[in-house]
């Protein structure tokens, strides 16, 4: 398939996941702040911004409305929900002929409805954000469902799922990052699990109280829960191996696979106690692995040419015309 199309599908996957996960995180955090009077709005806001990689601009007081505006609606923030949806739709627009009409229509209709949704959410304030978040989560779910039901399981599908999985690992790491950066008093693990839609699955698995060790274990290592880091890493790996099945006897030659495999092994074979020690470093390294894998995939498959800028080859200069013509004239 065309490299450009593969790249676009990869990014449709990433953007949709990013939109959904950001909506989840904001939804739950706002909810928690509203419920728990003891929470410090400024602290929570700062934690959210830092983990989403948005530099905190000094000056204006940090309050949730402003953070929501930045993370959800700000079109100048490349990672905001709105930017992610626009990005997914723009990426899809350039490859409309390769994705199914239904998937395109779904992304396009989401985009078309966005302005109205944003206007309503902004007008009513943070409380109305829940409805906006629900809209985003549902639309992304519909898109995922349509993709699942209408796309051939060819390389295009693999790039879409690969993008989604890498983004999911990254976002799960960021989410745990939020949890770690908040003071113990302010955040309970229930909130964190709910950000990943993992609370109910966790309860069914562990039948009991929510604690730090088990929650971390569940979000990073669970083999069956689709939003766990392990699950997403394994999915990404399997996409990569289907894109380039092993040929030699020395194991995978693909750089992205190596990076992800190492990241997965680093989680998989660690004892639970060890997992919590040095968690911040481990999360950073997990995110770095995602970023490296993403670059390796781009280098291997996307063949992005540097922007072509042609120069005109100048014709032979006419200084060399002088001798002959001069000689002619001299006679």
């Amino acid at each position: 398939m065309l490299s450009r199309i593969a790249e676009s599908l990869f990014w449709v996957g990433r953007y949709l996941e990013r939109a959904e996960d950001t909506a989840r995180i904001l939804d739950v955090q706002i909810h928690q702040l509203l419920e728990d009077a003891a929470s410090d709005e400024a602290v929570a806001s700062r934690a959210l911004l830092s983990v989403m990689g948005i530099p905190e601009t000094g000056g204006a007081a940090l309050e949730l409305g402003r953070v929501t505006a930045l993370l959800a609606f700000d079109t100048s923030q490349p990672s905001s929900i709105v930017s992610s949806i626009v990005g997914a739709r723009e990426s899809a627009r350039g490859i409309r002929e390769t994705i199914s009409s239904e998937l395109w229509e779904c992304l396009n209709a989401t985009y078309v409805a966005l302005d109205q949704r944003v206007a309503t959410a902004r007008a009513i304030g943070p409380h109305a954000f829940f409805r906006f978040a629900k809209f985003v989560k549902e639309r992304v779910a519909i898109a995922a469902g349509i993709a699942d039901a209408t796309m051939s399981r060819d390389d295009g599908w693999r790039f879409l799922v690969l993008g989604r999985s890498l983004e999911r690992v990254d976002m799960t790491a960021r989410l745990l990052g939020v949890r770690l950066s908040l003071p113990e008093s302010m955040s309970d693990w229930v909130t964190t699990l709910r950000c990943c839609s993992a609370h109910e699955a966790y309860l069914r698995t562990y039948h009991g109280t929510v604690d730090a060790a088990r929650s971390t274990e569940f979000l990073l290592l669970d083999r069956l829960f689709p939003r766990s880091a392990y699950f997403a890493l394994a999915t990404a790996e399997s996409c990569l191996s289907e894109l380039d099945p092993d040929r030699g006897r020395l194991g995978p030659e693909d750089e992205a696979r190596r990076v992800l495999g190492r990241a997965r092994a680093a989680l998989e074979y660690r004892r639970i106690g060890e997992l919590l020690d040095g968690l911040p470093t481990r999360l950073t390294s997990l995110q770095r692995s995602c970023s490296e894998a993403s670059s390796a995939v781009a280098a291997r498959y996307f063949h992005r040419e540097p922007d072509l800028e042609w120069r005109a080859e100048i014709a032979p200069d006419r200084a060399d015309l002088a001798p002959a013509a001069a000689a002619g004239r001299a006679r």
Partner: protein
Amino acid sequence: MPKHALGTHGPVEDLFEGYATGPWWDEMLEAPSAPRKVSLGLHETLRALSATDLEERCAERDRSFRDRGITFSLSGEERPFPLDPVPRLVSAAEWEVIETGVAQRVRALEMFLSDVYGRGEIFADRIVPRRLVATSRHFHRAAAGVEPPNGVRIHVSGIDLVRDASGEFRVLEDNLRIPSGVSYVVENRRTMARVFPELFVSHRVRPVADYASHLLAALQAASPRGARGDPTVVVLTPGVHNAAYFEHSFLARQMGVELVEGRDLVCRHNTLYMRTTSGEERVDVVYRRIDDDFLDPLHFRPDSLLGCAGLLNAARAGNVTIANAVGNGVADDKLAYTYVPDLVGYYLGERPILPNVPTYRLEEPEQLEHVLERIGELVLKPVDASGGYGLFIGPQASDEETAAISVAIRASPRSWVAQEVVLLSTVPTKVGSHLEPRHVDLRPFAINDGERVWVLPGGLTRVALPRGSLVVNSSQGGGSKDTWVLAGDEHTSAAREGDDAERTAAAALAEIPAYGSGPDLGPATGGAEQQQQQQQQGPGPPCSAG
């Protein structure tokens, strides 16, 4: 307003109330309340509709277009394509004239282009002056010697027709470069079938949905390796910022081929490849939707970011086919148009089936004087421009405009032609809550596969929306109509057989790292500009007034 029950005499609120006929040809009504034979059924159905009902169906239509992203860009803004709910009907007999006339014209123009870029016999025989070609901006000397493998240069054409007051179809303009609008023909039909299913029950309308399969077959037949080698066809688009991007992606999807941009392609030693995830893959046929000027920076504009360096020489070497061929514009400017009847006689020994609109060449001094005397009655068109731009309509012009145009055509007579005003035919069109006559033209699309010229039974009917306007153009406030070519007896039986065959066949087939920056969305602003600049031969095509 309350909704009225349907009665045998039609509802009280008649959509046709106040509908005026005039000195022009109305496609539906001979006189108020006197429908033409072809339109009896349609007229009856429309009269039975209430305004509210029509309104609801139009809302459904708009939703359908918007959600499916069937839009065109106007000054950078995406708008749903304007489709009027009332179709335009063409009888089987009328269509036969159009079909044979268009095919005849395309055959003559093919021979002309082959002659122009070959031996130039028509110049030696002094039928057409060499000057016509030599002074054309679209005559590309670099295309001389590029032989299309199956002899076809005009793989796709759009021949713009108008219908005069006597009911005769006339050719207004030929589009032989990158005529656009066919995707709207197909999508309009699809939408109409959902919004007005009952009309399709009462009419036998010839289908337009198989356009893409005809196109693909013609493109494969044009491959240097022949159609049998399973040639790789691609559609080359300027990119998402181009006004016709929807159509490019539509055609690629319908044909099941890759939609590529210039940056997906690379020429290596006179062979064209596309960059894929598994390396470079050879391309045999490029259906390009990029102007000649931007196609190959080696031969044309060196600053083009949209094309692919070396493409023209790859075609010259016989390794790839460019469709439509480079340099076709020499045969479709408005001055060349005036010679087409002569071309039909010279190359085919036939009389033109579809006449031109009477047109004057201003380079001939007597004609120039004649035109200057009658300038208030004529339409003046720039030879090169399209999209209805630069048009001068004598009867509607102010004194200053008239004075200015007189100076302009004296200064540069090669740049203009003058045409008699044609009072375009009208079709009932939804205006507010009822129907009014609006002027229309028709662009049928023809595909040449080297064996025969096939004309899509249908076409883009464009509507001049302002009352009395003769300029039908979506960039100038125009709309469109679904065009229904009604099946004659031979088509019904033939079509039924075809359907059966298809059905049988179908049955048988059973630190925190930063965020990534997103995909490369193409060249930045400069690129977007070039994408927008690409010549659009419709769907806001050259003006049809006159």
